[in-house]
């Protein structure tokens, strides 16, 4: 990581706080209108998808219904759920858009997400051994982690993780790696498993039992469409999230580096550990503005639709302090993610040789 003195870090903190304060002072009706518009769009897409689905015996309708429901789930998970649960709209004092009570349309419970994502991941971002989101304890993505033989097949794990992403995220807090090493016991995880079963059951009941049975004669079509919609959401959200921290230049950190760190150091870690991708307005909306991962990690509780507006200022701060601002096209960033997964499936020496060959 780039070395900065405490005085430089303090200056970085001041510069970034100024951007944050400016947005906070300006929060108001425009932001409320934006998020409510997204909620209305989600409700319309979800209702539309569900109503069209039983008519899926006509192939074009099937495609339209599945995509509509898939996009509805993406919008709800990424632009609404994820962002609301970060507290981006708590200031609106609207109980339907409040971080502590929001429950989203996916297997992971809101409570579990708030613990593992809002707290662990956003506080200990990219610290190997503390940020369990770094590789999700399934993938080896840095040479700081010792290579084990099963890493050789990790690309298969990556595909499986993407396909079943909502279940993977839902089970993330189970901490299977700590269960395997007997650091924690199954008994301790019982309350979590109960919550997981309740929410997972609820999601499966809705998409795979209730709506198919409701439209009994065409149940297989509705079931297939709902599976498809969940798959679309799983693949897309997994891809977006992988582009956020696992690109070529996204840095990792050690626990020693970050012990007793200042707010300025935390900012530096967020700036260098995250990566953006570029694209059109709707690509940003459907990624929940995680395409502005850098801005999101620096200011996780500012309304996400503000990230494009402040991106220029964040880049200026990065230039001033000589910090690399990691961005590129979606295709470029994603290809470096895939390379990273492949490269680290081999031990360091072997990968280096393969690289030079």
């Amino acid at each position, binding site marked *: 990581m780039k070395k900065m003195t405490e005085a430089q870090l303090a200056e970085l903190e001041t510069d970034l706080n100024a951007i944050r*304060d400016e947005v*906070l002072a300006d*929060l*108001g*009706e*425009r*932001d*409320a*209108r934006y998020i*409510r518009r997204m*909620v*209305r769009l989600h*409700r*319309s897409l979800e*209702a539309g998808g569900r109503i069209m689905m039983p008519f899926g015996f006509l192939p074009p309708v099937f495609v339209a219904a599945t995509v509509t429901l898939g996009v509805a789930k993406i919008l709800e998970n990424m632009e609404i759920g994820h962002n609301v*649960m*970060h*507290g981006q709209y*708590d*200031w*609106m*004092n*609207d*109980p*339907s858009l*409040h*971080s*502590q009570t929001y*429950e*989203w*349309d996916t297997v992971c419970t809101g409570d579990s997400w*708030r*613990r593992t994502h*809002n*707290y662990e991941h*956003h*506080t200990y971002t990219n610290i190997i051994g503390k940020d369990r989101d770094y590789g999700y304890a399934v993938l080896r993505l840095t040479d700081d982690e010792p290579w084990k033989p099963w890493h050789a097949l990790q690309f298969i794990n990556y595909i499986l993780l993407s396909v079943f992403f909502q279940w993977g995220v839902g089970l993330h807090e189970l901490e299977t790696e700590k269960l395997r090493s007997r650091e924690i016991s199954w008994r301790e995880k019982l309350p979590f498993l109960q919550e997981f079963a309740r929410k997972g059951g*609820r999601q499966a*009941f*809705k998409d795979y039992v*209730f709506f198919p049975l409701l439209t009994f004669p065409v149940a297989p079509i509705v079931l297939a469409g709902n599976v498809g919609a969940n798959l679309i959401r799983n693949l897309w959200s997994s891809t977006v999230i992988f582009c956020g921290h696992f690109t070529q230049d996204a840095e990792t950190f050690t626990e020693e580096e970050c012990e007793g760190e200042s*707010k300025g150091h*935390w900012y530096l870690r967020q700036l260098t550990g995250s990566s953006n991708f570029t694209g059109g307005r709707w690509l940003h909306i459907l990624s929940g503005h995680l395409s502005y991962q850098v801005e999101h990690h620096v200011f*996780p*509780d500012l309304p996400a639709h503000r990230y494009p507006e402040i991106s220029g200022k964040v880049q200026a701060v990065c230039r001033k302090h000589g910090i690399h601002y990691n961005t590129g096209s979606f295709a470029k960033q994603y290809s470096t993610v895939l390379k990273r997964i492949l490269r680290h499936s081999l031990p360091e020496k072997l990968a280096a040789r393969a690289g030079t060959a």
Partner: protein
Amino acid sequence: MLARNTQHKALQWLGRQLFNRNDPEAFFDPLLERINPMWVQEYTPARVEQVLFETRDTQTLVLKPARRWSGFSAGQHVNICVEVDGVRRKRTFSLSSSPLLWREQGLVTLTIKRLPGGLVTNWIHDHLQTGAVIGLGEAFGDFLIPEPARPVLFIVGGSGITPVLSQLETMAAQDYRAPVTLLYFVRTRDDVIAREKLRALEARYSALTLNIIATNESEEPRYLRDQDLDAIPGLKARQVYLCGPKGLMDLAQDLLYKRGFADSDIHSTFFSAPAANLGNETLGGQVQFESSRLEVGSEGDATLLEIAEAAGLSPRHGCRMGICHQCSCRKTTGTVINRLTGQASGPGEENVQLCISVPQGPVSLDL
């Protein structure tokens, strides 16, 4: 009834499964609100039917709540919810109409005075127009007319008249058979709220004696004094109702105690929250943790999270630096200063992040 209840419970359960929320009926509110705001389910919507101008700084809103609203008794208050620049603000006001108007015409009124610097009252005066829809809570409060009839004395100041208007209307309508006296203190004659209505009540309701006293029209301020009470026939037997500024209420209470009135014969209600002292940066205060039934004091810039932990509580929290919102908690009353921005919160009910909120004066938390 039982069958209907079970059916309702089953629907609620199904709704929770499908919409992932404890109030599934509100899932489509954002769409319904666009079509007809009176269809919203999350709160009881109420349409502004008319705005009446009472004095230069007081107006009466005539509201038509959705029919599912449960009604009220004379003297009760409601919380209303309005959205000011994207933020939902809740404030408490007294209902100034009689329950009869609600039963017969489905209407209620709120009489609202501009508070100096008041965010919501000024917004209502400047922006709320006929046709707008606001949120209405259920009525609450025990500032109620004595049943069966007993002699009554109202001592009222300024906009403290609002719950009393509702009570007098109700008493007149049911021809309440006991002497009723109203001592109404106003700054000047121009500040009398609902003058016409009071005159009409006096004319048609013979049990009512009305005495309007202007406090600031002479050289010396003319406050409540012993002679005012002496002039009231059968004072000893009266139930006394106080509503107005703190100064008037304290003074009245003193005079009544001296005459041997018991607390059970004095009924009082506050009509405005004390404003936060923004200029004064003294921090700390009594913090009340309501669910834990615990109250502790704090000094200096200790955060609510630190205060809670020092008191032996372990509220949910995360980063302790204002990032993760794990510790967001409902504040029911009181003012807090945001440690990051130095900004003071409003005095009302809202969510605060415990780890960066420093109390300024007494604070109550739902924790």
